[in-house]
C-alpha cells in the first residue's frame, strides 16, 4: 500500500493566487500578440480623433465634440473589451484548456476574476490614453475630475469584459461570438443618448434605455463634462459596476464543470 495514495498532503493555492495567475497569463498572451495590443491601445485614440475632425467644420467652438466625445469615450472600452473577451474565452473553451482548468482546483470565479483583472488593467491603460488624447490634444472640455472620467471608462471596460464572458457561453464558434457584438452592443449604442437624448426617446425606448448599462456610463461621462458635481456620477457608476458584477455572476453560472 502506498503512503501517497492514503494521505495526499499538498500545498494548495488559494483563490487569490489562482486569480492572479490567470490574470498574469492572459497579460503574457496579450504581450506576445503585438498586433492586438497595438489595436487595443491605439485604435480608440485614432477613432476619437476622427470624431473630433468630423465636427471641426460644424462650429468653431468645438461644442459638438464636447457633446458626443464623452459618449464615445464610454463606448470604446465597452465594445473593444466585449469583443476581445468573448473571442478569447471561446478560444479557451474550444482548445480544451478551460476543461483542463475546471478539472483542477480552480474556482469558476477565480477564472472569471482573472480575466476581468487582466482586461480591466488593459482597459485602464486604453482609457487613460483615450482620455489624455481627448483632453490634451483635442481640447475636450471636462468640468469634473479627470480621474473620475477615467474610472468610469475602466468600469465600463470591465462591464464589456463581464458581458463578453457571459455571451461566450452561448457561442460555439468564433463567428457566432463576433455576431453577439451587433446583438448585444449596438442596441445599447443606439439607445445610450448619443443619437437622440434619452429623455426625448419614445416612452417604451426610454424605458428600455433605462435598463441598459451603457446608458448609465454615457450619462456619467456627459455629466462629468458639464458639471463639477460628482454625486450623480457615483450613482451611475454604481449601476454600471452592478451590471458588471451581475455579468460575472451569470458568466460563472454558465461555466459548467460537467458538459455533455
Amino acid at each position, binding site marked *: *500500500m*502506498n*503512503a*501517497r*495514495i492514503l494521505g*495526499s498532503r*499538498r*500545498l*494548495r*493555492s488559494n483563490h487569490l*493566487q*489562482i486569480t*492572479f*495567475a*490567470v490574470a*498574469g*497569463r492572459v497579460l*503574457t*498572451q496579450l504581450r*506576445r*500578440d503585438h498586433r492586438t495590443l497595438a489595436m487595443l491601445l491605439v485604435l480608440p485614440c485614432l477613432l476619437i480623433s476622427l470624431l473630433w475632425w468630423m465636427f471641426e467644420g460644424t462650429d468653431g467652438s468645438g461644442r459638438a465634440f464636447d457633446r458626443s466625445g464623452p459618449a464615445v469615450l464610454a463606448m470604446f472600452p465597452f465594445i473593444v473589451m466585449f469583443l476581445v473577451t468573448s473571442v478569447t474565452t471561446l478560444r479557451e473553451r474550444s*482548445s*480544451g*484548456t478551460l*476543461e*483542463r*482548468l*475546471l*478539472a*483542477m*482546483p*480552480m474556482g469558476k470565479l477565480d477564472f472569471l476574476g482573472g480575466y476581468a483583472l487582466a482586461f480591466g488593467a488593459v482597459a485602464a491603460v486604453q482609457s487613460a490614453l483615450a482620455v489624455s488624447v481627448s483632453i490634451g490634444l483635442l481640447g475636450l472640455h471636462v468640468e469634473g475630475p479627470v480621474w473620475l472620467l477615467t474610472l468610469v471608462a475602466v468600469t465600463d471596460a470591465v462591464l464589456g469584459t463581464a458581458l463578453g464572458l457571459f455571451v461566450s457561453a452561448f457561442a460555439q464558434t468564433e463567428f457566432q461570438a463576433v455576431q453577439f457584438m451587433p446583438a448585444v452592443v449596438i442596441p445599447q449604442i443606439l439607445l445610450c443618448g448619443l443619437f437622440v437624448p434619452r429623455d426625448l426617446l419614445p416612452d417604451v425606448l426610454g424605458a428600455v434605455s433605462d435598463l441598459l448599462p451603457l446608458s448609465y456610463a454615457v450619462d456619467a461621462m456627459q455629466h462629468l463634462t458639464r458639471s463639477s458635481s460628482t454625486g450623480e456620477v457615483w450613482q451611475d457608476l454604481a449601476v454600471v459596476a452592478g451590471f458588471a458584477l451581475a455579468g460575472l455572476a451569470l458568466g460563472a453560472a454558465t461555466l459548467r*464543470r*460537467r*458538459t*455533455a
Partner: protein
Amino acid sequence: MMKNAVEVRGLTVVRGGSSVLTDLDLTIGGGVTGLLGPSGCGKSTLMRALVGVQRVAGGQLSVFGEPAGSRGLRDRIGYVTQAASVYDDLTVAENLRFFSRVLGVGQEQVARAVESVDLAGHRDQVVGRLSGGQRSRVSLAVALLATPDLLVLDEPTVGLDPVLRRDLWALFHRLADDGSAVLVSSHVMDEAERCDRLLLMREGRILADDTPAAIKQQAGAHDIEGAFLELVARDAGGAAA
C-alpha cells in the same frame, strides 16, 4: 495489493439521445492500465467521467473512495485530453509555470516535468511552433506537475516517434512504480503488451478486463488483436443465442 483507485458501477452516459456508455462496471487498480478499443467506442467519455467533467446519466463512480469530480480529487488527478490542452501562444515554460500556480506546486516541479517529457531543450519555445508530438508532450507535462495519484491519459502516444513512445511507456511504468495509478487509452492494439492490465472496450461496453496474458489465453489467441476479434465474435454469438 493496493486498494482500487477507481470503482465504477452501472455507469451510463447518454449523449444526443443515444447512449455512449451502457451500465459499465469496472475497477482500476495500481500499475499501468490500458483502455483499448476502436475510435468512438467511448474511451474518452469514460475518462471524462472519471475526472468529473462528463455529465453522466446514471451509475456510481468513485475515485480513491470519493465521488468522481469531488473538490478533494482535483489536485490528485492528472488528466491529459486527446488534443493538447495548452496555450499555443505561450512558451513551454510559461505554460507549465501557469498551471503550477493553479495547482500550487513549486517551480522545481516545473523543471522536473519538463525533463520527464524530454522537452528541456525547448523550454523557451512558443508551443504553437512545436510539432504535434511535442505539443502533446507539453500537455502531458502539465498533468505530471502535481505528482498525481491517478493519471488519466487519453491517447498520449498517438503520432509519436517509436523511440519517444517507448520512453513515454517507460515513464508511465516509472510513475506507476512510484505509486500512481495510470490509465492510458489507445486505439492501437500493439500498445496492449506494454500494460499491466487491460480493459478492452467496444461500443460502450467492456469486452475484457484482465492482464494481457490472461486475455490472450482466455480467447485462445496469439495477440491482443486476435483476442479482441475472438471476443467480439463470442459476444455477438452470445447476444444472438
